[in-house]
């Protein structure tokens, strides 16, 4: 591996190697993130807007988290269905 061609970043708690300069949008695709438009992304504990994903290049040591909508429990309000 040539220096500078790859970087190590932390994605959802796991250290991973990706091509240097990978954008957040490319990372989302590479990681096969489910329903990406409804996933909140943080880079180094800072929120990243959906609009910033394409332009934000990642750097060595960056920490990326994907935060997912998660329901669960029951539906006591609005309508009476059983989840």
């Amino acid at each position: 591996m040539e220096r500078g061609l790859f970087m190590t970043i932390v994605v959802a708690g796991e250290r991973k190697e990706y091509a240097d300069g990978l954008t957040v949008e490319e990372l989302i695709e590479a990681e096969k993130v489910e329903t990406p438009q409804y996933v909140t992304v943080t880079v180094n504990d800072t929120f990243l807007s959906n609009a910033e994903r394409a332009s934000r290049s990642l750097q060595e040591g960056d920490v990326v988290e994907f935060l997912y909508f998660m329901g669960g429990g029951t539906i006591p309000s609005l309508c009476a269905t059983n989840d």
Partner: protein
Amino acid sequence: MRVPILREASFERNSMAFTNEQLERYSRHIILKEIGPKGQKKLMKAKVLIIGAGGLGAPAALYLAAAGVGTIGIADADSVDLSNLQRQVIHSTADIGRPKVESARDSMLAINPEITVHTYYEYITSENISGIIRDYDFVLDGTDNFPAKFLINDACVLEEKPFSHAGIIRFEGQLMTYVPGEGPCYRCVFKEPPPKDAVPTCREAGVVGAVAGVIGCLQAMEAVKYITGAGDLLTGRLLTYNALRSQFRTVPLPRDSHCAVCSGERTIHVPFDYELPVCDLK
């Protein structure tokens, strides 16, 4: 100098007075230095509201009742269904068809007849939520749908009520705790509810009952910690659980300085309902 100290100690003993039955019932709490008799008294005076008597609310309600939380409110407009019983362990087969709040109340009182249970057999909406949560010290969000989660978040932020948010799906779960003036709120992390059917629900994708148990118990633990002051809350952190990997993680959650409800740039001043979901599945 000793007299005032003895008087103080005497007063403390009186205020800490437990019946013999209470000493026995709560002995495992009282022996813990982080809880002790003072913490147990705080639990016995506390009021916790659980919104949703389902997968998350069921284990939370059972453990909070067992812990001796003095007043527990339980809100749910649904009735017990056979498909609930795989994970909603506060209900039994004999309860099928009964309002969940009644079944949950009976189970809680069977464990601990010393507590008071208030039931809210009604839909939680922007019209009634503020009036309901106002009387409680801590709120647990045990709901499934996202409009309800945003409603609970906004109402709790506006009423300055701490609450535990949680979600579960398949083999995974997550939770965070909001404390007024401290951590980020749910809307800091997620700006708007996703469109209907945009993200899978437990009904569509499934969930392991034990995952609901794990996360619901963790919500109960957050309530116990908030009330007693023991340990560190999940404020500013999201705890995630992946059952297949047997893995817990905590993810730092920043505050959104532009948050529509909890920041200085607030644009939401009263709770409101998002579009009602179409209840086409039963």
